[in-house]
């Protein structure tokens, strides 16, 4: 092969590589835009006045800067999204703490304490991970009606706690099992009780797993519509997901309100996501790699 030919072959190869790179960039940027534009469009719309929205598409008005926060004020006050925001917190915080505490105890026993039926119990938890909530709603609501829990905060806390437990136990048990055995042995030699080991060794070492779980459970409860719809039949206690659903029912084409309302509901999960992204990713991959 002459130097000339070799050089042109090198150029051809580089050209192929450059085209490949170009295709990669086009695909990635294209997909990125497809994923961002819907949310972005709704956000721009939430900042436009009702007559502006009716007059032109948001994509023609990106740089007109006639933006307003009026829609947000209207949604928060007149449509009571402010109250919904508080209700969402009242529902979400206990519904995050309870399953983690109860689940951590169970996960500890399943990981490190010896008792008959332990493995069968863990398999039962795995099975419950997949049971569709649709098969539980009617009997649970009948039970709630019997005990006057329908439409109360304790009722929805209980429901979210129970429904969150299989995942909590699964994730924490898998993390606990991976802790080094030597720690437990030496603690036992020092005379530590099971409970002492749990509080002084297991919990402190598991902070990352507990944090991931807390973020998951919190966003899951915050984003929940169905359980609120079924168990919380009291308009004064509706969380934001229900406020939005009501708004759709009453003002299905009032996009200035719907857009602002949607962003009020999304604000919390987005804040959590942007500040704690790595815990999210860790939680998802932990479930996949270990499960």
């Amino acid at each position, binding site marked *: 092969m002459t130097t000339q030919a070799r050089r042109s072959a090198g150029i051809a190869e580089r050209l192929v590589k450059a085209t490949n790179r170009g295709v990669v960039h086009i695909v990635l*940027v294209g997909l990125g835009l497809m994923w961002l534009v819907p949310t972005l469009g709704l956000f721009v719309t939430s900042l436009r006045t009702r007559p502006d929205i009716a007059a032109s598409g948001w994509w023609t008005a990106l740089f007109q800067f006639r933006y307003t926060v009026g829609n947000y004020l209207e949604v928060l006050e007149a449509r009571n999204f402010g109250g919904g925001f508080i209700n969402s917190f009242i529902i979400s915080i206990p519904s995050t703490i309870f399953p983690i505490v109860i689940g951590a105890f169970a996960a500890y026993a399943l990981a490190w304490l010896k008792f008959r039926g332990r493995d069968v119990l863990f398999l039962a938890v795995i099975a419950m991970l997949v049971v569709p909530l649709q098969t539980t709603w009617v009997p649970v609501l009948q039970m709630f009606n019997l005990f006057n829990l329908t439409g109360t905060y304790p009722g929805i806390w209980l429901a979210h706690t129970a429904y969150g437990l299989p995942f909590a136990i699964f994730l924490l048990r898998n993390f606990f099992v991976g802790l080094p055995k030597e720690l437990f042995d030496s603690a036992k030699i020092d005379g530590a009780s099971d409970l002492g080991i749990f509080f002084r060794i297991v919990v402190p070492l598991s902070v990352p797993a507990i944090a991931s779980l807390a973020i998951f459970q919190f966003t899951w409860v915050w984003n929940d519509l169905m359980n609120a719809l079924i168990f919380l039949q009291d308009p004064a206690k509706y969380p934001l997901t229900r406020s939005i659903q009501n708004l759709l029912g009453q003002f299905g084409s009032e996009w200035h309100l719907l*857009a602002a309302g949607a962003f009020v509901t999304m604000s919390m999960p987005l804040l959590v996501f942007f500040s704690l992204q790595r815990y999210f990713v860790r939680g998802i991959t932990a479930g996949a790699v270990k499960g």
Partner: protein
Amino acid sequence: MLTRARRRSGAWLYIIPAGILLIAFLVYPVVRTLWLSFFGGLGFNPTEFVGLDNYIRLLTNDRLFLKLDELPPSGAMINTVLWIVLFTSGSLGIGMLVAVLADKVRYEPIVKAAIFLPMVISATAASVIFRFVYSPDRTIGVLNAVLTGIFPDLEPVPWLGRISLVNYAVIGAGIWIFTGLAMTVLSAAYKSLDKEVLEASQVDGANAWQAFWRVSMPMMAQPIVFVAIYLIITSLKMIDLVLVMTEGGPRGASRIIGFTMYWEVFNNGLVGYGSAVAIILLVLMTPVIIIQIRRVRAEQALR
């Protein structure tokens, strides 16, 4: 001897709170739902025992649940199959594409954040977003704006209002939400692959395409199966996206099994009938439950 006995009984104390809740909210309700599925009539505490009538009606005489005598077949069962096939392959395919391609570029974190973002918002908010994107109103729906921009003769399409399109439109929104999950798991798996094997295959003359299909893919079989199972479970359970986007309409065309249970019980007041739908859902889910348990067993055997 005494201490060991005490330790053993002590273990149960850790389990009991979780156990009580799981039995009250998951185990007992499943059994009771099965029992309720044999009852008919309206009202929340049905008393009229009808045996298997609900199941027979669902599978042979409910055109919104299963209609096989016309082509193409339709109904909630068929729509669920459509979900399982398109939603799973769509999310998995795009997730894999992004996981592999983004690995090579500097703006990887930005692309991944954009695609993951829909995973953290509620299905309710996502439904609002897609009612907005799909709107046939000329100043609202961006999808129609793009299409009429490219094809000026085209009339704006009511994506959620047309029986032939609605399922694909809702599934599209589902893929938009769940691609982030597939991408995250597959990206972690791809990054943990032994890069030496990949390089060796390229030295042996495999191009990037062959290296991907013959080397990377087989090495990623486990996480791919995990994601596929997760997405199939999600299609079977799916409910709020359909409820908020279409309420199962137009004329029941976008109903799926998970949605039908809710609608029959809480909208139509047919508790026994809806319970039968829930049991059918659970039966369809059992293979997945068994696979899940097998996987964990196999993993424990390795430990």
